[in-house]
């Protein structure tokens, strides 16, 4: 089949853009498993750097996972009920609240962190514990949870479903757990993945809030870039990728509406 020059031009452009995005990633991964980056691949491949990172920074990895899960727990406990209230009470105030919720995303992380330090810096025990970072992460990720759940709640006729459940004798608690939560599952899952991913990768706020003993993965990454061999920083990146990419893939998969997925499945089965 002959194609127009225009096609090849577009193809070349696409490949170029992809290369621009992907090459640094590949290079970084390569650097992490190369014996000596300045000599190059011919110096040999090794997992030595990865092991070294593990021995130096494994604590930051566990702390990051811990904070991400704690952030998830808090955003679920606050975010889902908040989204429910915003969805059920449609008035001037709730619309204001919805707008205000975007603020922590729009304001630079450094400013949020500074405000937290000004307000809570004097409480020393709190200031040096990991829960200080947790507060920053919750502030930053909560809007994503609320928005994600709110979007699903807006798409289903929540009020009528609740009326129907109530007419059948279900109390508020029963309605919430039998009908509302299961039917918002999609939004809650998408929000949860988003929150975990954002918390794991959060740098701006965390960098301001951390202490040498409460270093998270991205902050450790910056630390290793600044003070270690380039190969160690790169090996660290590999570990970060391994942790974050499954989350990103899951998020992408979740963001497709279910009927699209079902259709894709059907097509596969022929």
């Amino acid at each position, binding site marked *: 089949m002959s194609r127009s020059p225009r096609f090849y031009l577009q193809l070349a452009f696409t490949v170029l853009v992809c290369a621009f995005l992907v090459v640094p990633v590949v290079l970084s991964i390569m650097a992490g498993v190369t014996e000596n980056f300045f000599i190059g691949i011919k110096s040999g491949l090794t997992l030595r750097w990865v092991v070294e990172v593990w021995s130096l920074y494994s604590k930051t990895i566990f702390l990051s996972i811990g904070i991400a899960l704690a952030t998830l727990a808090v955003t679920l406990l606050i975010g889902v009920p908040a989204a429910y209230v915003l969805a059920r009470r449609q008035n001037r105030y709730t619309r204001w609240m919805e707008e205000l919720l975007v603020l922590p995303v729009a304001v630079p992380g450094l400013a949020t962190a500074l405000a937290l330090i000004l307000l809570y810096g004097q409480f020393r025990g709190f200031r040096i514990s990991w829960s200080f970072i947790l507060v920053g992460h919750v502030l930053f990720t909560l809007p994503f949870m609320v928005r994600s759940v709110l979007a699903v709640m807006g798409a289903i006729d929540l009020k009528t479903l609740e009326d129907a459940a109530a007419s*059948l*004798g*279900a109390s508020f608690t029963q309605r919430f757990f039998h009908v509302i939560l299961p039917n918002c599952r999609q939004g809650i899952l998408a929000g949860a993945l988003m929150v975990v991913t954002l918390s794991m990768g959060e740098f701006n706020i965390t960098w301001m809030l951390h202490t040498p003993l409460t270093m998270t993965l991205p902050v450790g990454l910056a630390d290793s870039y600044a003070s270690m061999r380039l190969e160690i920083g790169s090996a660290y990146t590999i570990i970060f990728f391994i942790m974050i990419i499954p989350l990103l893939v899951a998020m992408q998969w979740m963001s497709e509406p279910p009927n699209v997925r079902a259709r894709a499945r059907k097509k596969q089965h022929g």
Partner: protein
Amino acid sequence: MDNTVGIRLAGCGKTFADGTRALERVDLDINPGETVVLLGPSGCGKTTMLRIIAGLEQPDAGGRVLFGGEDVTLLPIEQRHVGMVFQSYALFPNMSVAENIAYGLRVRGMDAAQKKQRVDEMLSMMHLDSFAERQIDQLSGGQRQRVALARALAVRPRVLLLDEPLTALDAKLRESLRAEIDRLLRSLKITAVYVTHDQSEAMALGDRIAVMDHGRIAQIGSPRDIYYRPATRFVADFIGSMNRVRGSVEGEHLRLASGRLHVGPRVRAEVLFRPEDVRIVDSGGAHLQARIVNAFFLGDHTRLILDLGDAQTIIAETVERREFRPGDLVPVTVDAAALLFLD
């Protein structure tokens, strides 16, 4: 159903927070086992009245809702023991057909064996036996509404409340499901309140129809009462088609540009009558000489638009098989017994 009760509304009005008055203070008595249809255009207050009966809305202060003598005004819907069917079906997408039907029993803590038996009973009553394990999104609209009916009836409610249950369905399905609902209401002998804006649904299903207008009950009565003896102009115009002609009184007759109509001793300057009461007659006796403006052959009958002169047109329906052509003159009359007078 043995536990069904009558419903009584006493002085129930509804003013919303923004000041709109959805329902004027109304009183309504519904007998046990009776089906009352609330009929009216959108915004007439019929849905508000249903939601007050259900417990989804509170009446304004002073209003009371009674179920068989028990004052339920302060009870929320989940304690009123009602069954409710919604226009949008409101089935739970996260549950199968059987789980939907069992939901009311589940929250009541019924044991598994009894629950299964009741669900099977409902499935076969609604001819849904083979659908038990289906997901809701695998059902057609008609099937969904049958599941919704089964779910509402599974808890053996004291009253059944239906909010425009057929409106979302296409015409053919609407008719067959209407017949099914009719059969259910008759065989279960359950007190039912049915909201609709469709007069043929109201006529077919209602023991009594409450025609509503601007938050008031304009008239309540049997379908025949409402149709043949409308109490107000609004009811006359809302139910079916109604012709209205004016003329001058001449003894027991009404004189129009196109002839005379025998009215009888109750003669008035304005009379109303239904299209099907217009009779095509021989040119003897009192009659109107009407000119055909349009003739629509509809198979089972022909609908004529007739000009009576003086810019007065009426609609007539006839089952005569002859062909009517626009421009032709036909002599018509209306029996005095079929004429209505309204102020």
